[in-house]
């Protein structure tokens, strides 16, 4: 049952990534790879949340994985990295929480609205932090490679 649901969710994330890619007009050679990155990272995020990892750390790891996978995809396909990481991120956007925040502010439930606001900030911050760590990984790998090559 859980596995069934998981596979269904992976397919959904794959479709969502490709659809967002079409809206952003990414080159059609990149559809499959971007979709796979989106589905894979969403799968890992779901598995982690099943294991009881909180939303902040889950989103951070997912964003880091998207960033690193996009880096290698960009090298492999010889295309800019943003073609892969922006569409892949679409399943992680805190859309539901943002909407609930706005709605609760609008109808006067300020207390509830602030708690949703905190969730949105945590998720967005975790995603941004994951991207920053991905950039850091990129810099480290460059440094490592040049130093390694210089030694031998």
């Amino acid at each position: 049952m859980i596995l069934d649901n998981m596979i269904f969710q992976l397919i959904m994330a794959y479709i969502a990534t490709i659809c967002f890619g079409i809206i952003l007009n990414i080159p059609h050679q990149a559809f499959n790879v971007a979709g796979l990155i989106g589905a894979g990272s969403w799968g890992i995020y779901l598995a982690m949340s099943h294991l009881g990892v909180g939303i902040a750390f889950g989103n951070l790891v997912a964003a880091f994985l998207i960033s690193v996978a996009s880096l290698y995809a960009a090298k492999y396909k010889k295309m800019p990295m943003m073609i892969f990481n922006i569409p892949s991120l679409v399943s992680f956007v805190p859309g539901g929480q943002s909407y609930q925040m706005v709605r609760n502010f609008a109808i006067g439930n300020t207390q509830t609205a602030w708690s949703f606001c905190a969730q949105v900030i945590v998720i967005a911050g975790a995603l941004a932090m994951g991207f920053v760590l991905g950039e850091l990984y990129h810099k480290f790998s460059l440094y490592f490679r040049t130093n390694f090559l210089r030694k031998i």
Partner: protein
Amino acid sequence: MDMGFDKQTHILNACLQAGRILIENGSEMARVIDTMQRIAFNAGVKNAQMFVTVTGIVISIDNHPNAQVASIDHRTIDLDKVARVNELSRKFAQREIDLPELVRLLDRIDNETATFPFWIRFLAAAMLSAVLLIIFTHEYVDAPAGFVVGGIGFAIFYFLNHKFKVQFLSEFFASFIIGILAAIAVKIGLGVHFDNIIIGGIMPLVPGVPITNAVRDLVSGNLISGPARAFEALISAVAIAGGIVCVLNFI
């Protein structure tokens, strides 16, 4: 440097053209600067300085009396053009094309790059709404309503943005109409949960590119473009939320 004045001007113009196309179509700043620097370097200019922001480019090279400026008036998102300019810059670095050819191909990218036809984008937006509605809310009953509402909302955004070129107003109107359509869909029985249909419907409007670029610009230390893009994303989000709030007041 014994380079002719005309040649230098040609190099400057090629750099400006490439940078302008990249910024207009949603590239991050580090890539813009990198691409312009590479084009200048491969054309034989060892020392090019540039100042790049989201609304304009200034570039100057040594021994050339004039700095050149390009202003950027409208920005859209078309990552295909970014990829093509990237590929062109790589070809130029490998000496597969020369400078006049580069300028000609840049012009061609600017004017003739094919985009997906509107109906495919429309279907993609509709599909995106339905799929994300299922992912976010784990409910299937509202997916058809999300499909219709999200598609129509995106179509309205697309047409208003092409007609008037005021992105924030287009987002406001599109989300306003998404809210009204969601209310109608619940009333006539096409959907069940008003909230879920709206969550799905506004997803194609989410400013994903400005947010991601803001983070990457800030990480690379660009303190002008990073906050500017973050602000752009914030205004978009406020416009979308404003449209929804207008509808919520009547429900």
